[in-house]
């Protein structure tokens, strides 16, 4: 079943690099847009006002997707000094509780951002510079929340099974 193996490798690559690759691409786009804006302003006295709008909204997507990758890799900053001194079973409970809180927070963010999007669609809110639907930008919050929640569940299951985070 070579085909199955290939699908599995693609899936594995996505599992390991999906958010990372998107974030790297977005950061490159943001930097390139900003640089282009500087060049046009000094060479032609024109300002690409829309570029700032795109950069800022890409920053929202970058924050959410990059945070998902950071949850997967366990690099969000925290105070583990006290917890490490507890028995392993207590640590597991705290890890599960911490994951539940995080998922609850992102569930709330997802819910309220979907309601914000509803409002923006209903009122046909458009962005200031490009006049495109505002909810295209807001969408980063619920989408990101879902991916983050999935990564937290994945990382917590792995941690509770006793494996070290990759």
């Amino acid at each position, binding site marked *: 079943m070579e085909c199955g193996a290939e699908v599995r490798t693609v899936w594995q690559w996505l599992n390991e690099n999906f958010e990372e690759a998107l974030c790297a691409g977005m950061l490159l786009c943001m930097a390139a847009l900003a640089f282009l804006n*500087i060049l046009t302003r000094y060479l032609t006295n024109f300002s690409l006002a829309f570029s700032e709008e795109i950069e800022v909204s890409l*920053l929202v997507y970058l924050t959410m997707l990059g*945070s998902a990758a950071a949850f997967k890799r366990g690099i969000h900053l925290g*105070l583990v000094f006290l917890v490490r001194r507890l028995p392993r079973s207590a640590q597991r409970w705290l890890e599960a509780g911490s994951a539940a809180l995080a998922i609850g927070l992102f569930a709330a963010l997802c819910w309220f951002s979907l309601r914000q999007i509803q409002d923006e669609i209903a009122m046909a809110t458009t962005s200031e510079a490009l006049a495109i639907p505002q909810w295209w*930008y807001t969408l980063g*919050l619920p989408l990101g929340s879902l991916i983050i929640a999935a990564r937290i569940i994945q990382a917590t299951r792995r941690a509770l099974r006793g494996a070290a985070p990759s």
Partner: protein
Amino acid sequence: MTDPSVWLFVSFLVLVGLGVPIAIAVGVSGAFFLWYYQLGIQILSANIYGNIAKFQLLAIPFFILAGLILDRVGISQRLVHLVNLLIGPTTGGLALVAVVVCVFFAGLSGSGPADTAALGTVLIPAMVAKGYDRGFASALIASGGSIAIIIPPSIAFIIYGVITATSIPALFAAGILPGIVVGLCLMVPAYLISRARGYAGDRWGRPAEIWRAFRDSIWGLLAPLVILGGIYGGIFTPTEAAVVAVFYGLFVGGLIYRTLTWRILYETLRDAALSSAVVMLIVAFAGLFAWAGSTLGAMDKAARFIIGLSQSPWVTILWVNLLLFIAGMLLDAVSIYYVFLPIFMPVMAHFHWDPVWFGVVMTINLAIGQVTPPVAVNLYVAANLARISLERISRAVLPFVLAMVGALLVAIYLPVLSTWLPKLLRLY
């Protein structure tokens, strides 16, 4: 103890103590109080979006990226080589080289842990090879790395400027001299310990060698001029200067040193994006916490409490700094700015403190927080690079923490050290 204001802060600290990531802890307590006291939880989404989507904050990913690129194309090794030839056979030569390079590299990078990683990779193995103790070497680099947030560019000043609406170029200029003072203070224990333990220096560089090393690192030496010259020449905003620094790094790495490969480019973009996201998630949720605290009236109450502590501004500033020092042991700098600045701003207004001076003082204190355990980002990075335990590096860092506290006191009692340069440049 039934005052919800107290519980807001207590719940946050308890969650952090239980090992919940700081971003989540600050977000959960902020969101819970907004919901429980019916302060308008509906704004959750709009508030988070607004906290992230600020033009000035774009400078954070750009400066992180610029610092990483300038390091990975090979500027840090070249600088270490040059400074080593110049310092020569002085006792503790390599330790002093480390501090000088840390101060200089702080002019390229705005993140303490990124600086520690960049210089630690080069300097810790070099120092260990010369017979320096691993604990001493890594603690020194971790402390020196924290100067990154005092000398511009600085992520810390960007966040302080956004929260307090203070001019970021003015803050950047204000950090230069105090950052150099912190470096000088770090040299004292570095030299004394090296002398006591007999760490010898290297040989003098021959003039031809020095010239070659200088020519080799000239592109690195010019980078701070590009960044700061652009800002103070009135050509660029800080965000634009950060972007220019990114492309300067790409230019040097791609065309001059020819060390930049597609793989390095991808890895640098990825690492910069992830580091930025970790910072920005704290920005998003700590901003929510600050909003909840202000709406609840908790920030005003805490401010009135601090104002009531003493009539004397000098006593108050010491209390404020003690509070920041303790907070710096338990939390990261970004969440401290968002949680504590709404409390300190009324205090600053009451005593007519200069916001630029206060920003420098607070930032030096939080730079110390990057090396005071248990939460000490720079110590984590340096201990990892040196493959030693957090306990060992925590003991080794103590003399450097004392030296930095000395520099902090100098910055507190000599406001002119911070305000002279921004006033000279007519930035405020």
